[in-house]
């Protein structure tokens, strides 16, 4: 990967409900196609199942106990240590670094600037429609607009006639074309907002998931022996207009079965909407002639409970809340060398595409998002940041993760024998 560009795709609240992770219901042909050219990690985990701490953790390569960010209200550079970030490291190594959409969590935790200018070469882009995300834009059965959880929409009726992720894709494609002409190495991070709540997506995606095909979670009850401290009472879900109207008791009351199915249906629909955005973005990478020299990384900040254990949302240590998709496309490494101009990622329409893509390589090794920083550095041919000492508050550049590139050579389904991390 020496000298290759990096396209880093981060999805908000995406658990691995993807065809390439074995989900039989979801329509995700474009992400599956990426997987078919990638090394896919089936046991990848975030360090904390909430946006800001998880993102700061994998973007700095340090765990929450080192960033000291467990909520949304501090900036690690002043609160913990002036740690280098992954994009900053690429920037300092000659890359043009670009941020589109939700990469850092906005607000205090990234200094109200997405850590610009430390991390980025130009000010990060945020879609203008983002500010309408929590507006009352969901048409209810009463014909009025509400701030619902379940929110299929007619995009033409939305403020500005669009949705944030559509705008982010457009901007990312624009930047790819700019970078193509400047011929500078780039690190482009694209952060998508969906399937984070509200589950607001173009209504046509509902057609992919007839309600009669939607099941409940296999275990939609609170486990008898679950300690009360472990339970997440999903307050953000309760506060949406449609859920509030159900008058579900706090903290353990269950949502009605039919509404559980609607949430699951809309989560799947939002994933397919996201898949279309990814498909358009990767197709543009092809169009720009950059698929032969760009590493593509795809992951999420954490997972999301879809009714398992009587829980919704994230905010827990359960695997459904912490497990994430993670895949790396490295031309010439996870695929045969790609000639310039060859189409690697033709756009696939989830409404018409029928087919199954198989991951190019698959590892069942337990890996962590904190390892993204050293892994991407190694793949790009940069010096891998050193391992952090036990106390690293004063160390600007180090990582608490480990490069997982050595797993790329393990064949499908194989779990390596012990002593990992001792090789070097």
């Amino acid at each position, binding site marked *: 990967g020496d000298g290759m560009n990096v396209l880093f795709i981060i999805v908000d609240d995406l658990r691995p409900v993807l065809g390439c992770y074995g989900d039989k219901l979801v329509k995700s042909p474009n992400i599956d196609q990426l997987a078919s050219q990638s090394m896919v990690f089936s046991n990848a985990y975030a360090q904390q199942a909430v946006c800001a701490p998880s993102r700061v953790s994998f973007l700095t390569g340090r765990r929450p106990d080192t960033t000291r960010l467990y909520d949304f209200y501090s900036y690690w550079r002043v609160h913990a240590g002036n740690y280098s970030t992954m994009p900053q490291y690429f920037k300092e190594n000659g890359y043009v670094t670009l941020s589109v959409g939700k990469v850092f969590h906005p607000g205090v935790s990234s200094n109200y600037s997405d850590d610009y200018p430390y991390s980025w070469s130009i000010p990060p882009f945020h879609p203008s429609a983002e500010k309408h995300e929590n507006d009352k834009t969901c048409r209810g059965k009463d014909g009025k607009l509400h701030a619902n959880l379940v929110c299929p929409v007619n995009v033409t009726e939305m403020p500005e006639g669009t949705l944030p992720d559509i705008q982010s894709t457009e901007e990312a494609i624009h930047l790819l074309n700019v970078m193509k002409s400047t011929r500078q190495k780039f690190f482009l991070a694209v952060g998508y907002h969906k399937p984070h709540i509200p589950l607001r997506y173009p209504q046509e995606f509902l057609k992919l998931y007839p309600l009669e095909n939607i099941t409940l979670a296999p275990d939609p009850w609170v486990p008898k022996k679950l300690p*009360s401290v472990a339970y997440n009472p999903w307050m953000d879900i309760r506060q949406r207009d449609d859920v509030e109207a159900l008058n579900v008791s706090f903290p353990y009351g269950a949502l009605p079965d039919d509404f559980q199915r609607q949430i699951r249906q809309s989560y799947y629909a939002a994933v397919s909407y996201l898949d279309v955005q990814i498909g358009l973005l990767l197709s543009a990478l092809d169009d720009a002639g950059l698929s032969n020299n760009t590493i593509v990384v795809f992951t999420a900040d954490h997972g999301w409970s879809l009714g398992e254990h009587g829980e919704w949302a994230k905010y827990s240590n359960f695997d459904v809340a912490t497990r994430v998709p993670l895949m790396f496309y490295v031309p010439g490494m996870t695929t045969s060398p790609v000639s310039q101009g060859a189409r690697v990622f033709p756009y696939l329409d989830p409404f018409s595409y029928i087919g199954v893509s198989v991951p190019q390589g698959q590892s069942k090794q337990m890996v962590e998002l904190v390892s993204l920083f050293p892994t991407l550095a190694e793949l790009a041919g940069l010096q891998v940041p050193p391992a952090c000492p036990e106390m690293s508050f004063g160390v600007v550049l180090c990582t608490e993760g480990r490069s997982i590139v050595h797993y790329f050579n393990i064949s499908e389904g194989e779990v390596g024998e012990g002593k990992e991390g001792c090789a070097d």
Partner: protein
Amino acid sequence: TDRCFNEEPVAFSQYPRPADTPQWNSDKPKLKDIRIMGYSMRTIDYRYTLWVQFDPNNFRANFEDVHAGELYMMENDPNQDNNVYNNTSHGWFFKKLL
């Protein structure tokens, strides 16, 4: 701190709580309200979580003060529904860990 131990790779996660029982800010407690931290380690075979006292003033977790524990064995409980932390039959497991 010794990374060269003959064990399989582990993934860690953590989650803060303001109290032992669910309350309005259990999902997103502010730093000053955090009293308990749940630390998880997971392998292909199990997830082991300890919920321990946490002091937000000095960021210290006290593993001598365990509020609750979880242990799920993935082979026969892949959805993590059966917490066997208090099962005496898993004493061998804790011995191995310690």
